[in-house]
């Protein structure tokens, strides 16, 4: 179909979002999109969530961290932020989400807020809670395995 003349096209804002989860989590673009639309539908209702759009454009997730670019209609960024805040789990993996910034174009958003690489996770043993325990470490953070589950820590906790 022929695209709309420029003056009548919808205006968009692009949200750069940082994602953090457990190292073993595998989150795909489809999983994230579904969780986001569910969260928006539940919090804002069908009408408002349709207004927001919330289409996931770019998505990358690997080794427990990722980033994504979400398209939102101009003027609806605050409801979109609220819906995004309500995404707490994706496929049973807890996720921490933060809006790094908002831009008017995909390119500006990518250049300014995305592309922050982090190191890879590595297996090692650390001293924590009076014992030597297996941990998955990356940069200055670690997920330490305990009998009761895993604990998220930083190097300040075991050095």
């Amino acid at each position: 179909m022929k695209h709309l003349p420029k003056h009548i096209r919808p205006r968009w804002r692009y949200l750069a979002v940082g994602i953090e989860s457990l190292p073993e989590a595998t989150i795909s673009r489809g999983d994230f999109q579904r969780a986001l639309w569910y969260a928006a539908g539940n919090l804002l209702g069908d009408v408002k969530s349709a207004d927001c759009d919330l289409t996931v454009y770019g998505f990358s997730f690997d080794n427990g961290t990722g980033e994504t670019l979400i398209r939102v209609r101009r003027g609806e960024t605050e409801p979109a932020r609220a819906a995004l805040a309500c995404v707490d789990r994706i496929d049973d993996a807890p996720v921490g989400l933060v809006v790094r910034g908002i831009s008017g174009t995909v390119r500006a958003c990518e250049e300014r807020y995305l592309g922050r690489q982090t190191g890879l996770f590595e297996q090692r043993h650390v001293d924590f809670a009076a014992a030597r325990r297996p941990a998955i470490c990356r940069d200055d953070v670690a997920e330490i395995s305990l009998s009761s589950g895993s604990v998220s820590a930083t190097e300040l906790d075991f050095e």
Partner: protein
Amino acid sequence: MYEAVSAYPDGSSTVSRHARTAARYGYDGLIVRTRNADYDADAIAETYGIDVVSGIEIDADTPQQAAGSIGNFRPRCTVLMACGGSDELNRYCVETDRIDVLSRPMAAGGDINHVLARAAKTNRVFIEFDFGPVLREHGGNRVKAIRKLRKLRELVEYYDTPFVVSANANSHFGLRAPRELCALGEQLGFSADQIRAGLRAWSEIVARNRQRAAETYVEPGVRFGRVDDAENTQNESNEHNAGPGQ
């Protein structure tokens, strides 16, 4: 703006991991609700540039138990919180000026009415708006939590009761940035200014209690020392990390 969290062993993230995330999200400080959390506040402050404050959240079943805990824990922390529950417990908490914050007042069947809202204002007990269930619950539980938040908001607005806002995270994944909480609050009927005021209120409590814990503090409005040094003394007391010793 400050946020209050439950850390390991009550939560699944250590204090330093919470602090790392909170600093990235733009918080100035972090209050630790967990009594037996093991951390070095100075090292965390130096590494991540965030003020880590010792707090204790009392989780008592009856006013009698709460009274015992207040006596034990008040001198050992900067911010003392009491977890709400039954109506009797909520009433006791808002009438006890040694408690700083009544947290989760509407959880576990508890309720707040006009008498409690007025008492909280009189005794400067801050009432917490707990956004945890809105962020992490689903379905009917979430609807109930939103309904209770609205009732609490209407009472707090009418009686001008002091309040704090928190996402009540027990893992660093549960933390949300101030702007996200403002946006969520706006959807729930709060204004963004109210949410920001609620996050800033934590830092007011911390500053007040640190000032009270300072050696130069005598009583409200009275300080020991030379008048010329008053400003310096206040700055020093704000940096002091010990418990309030009311």
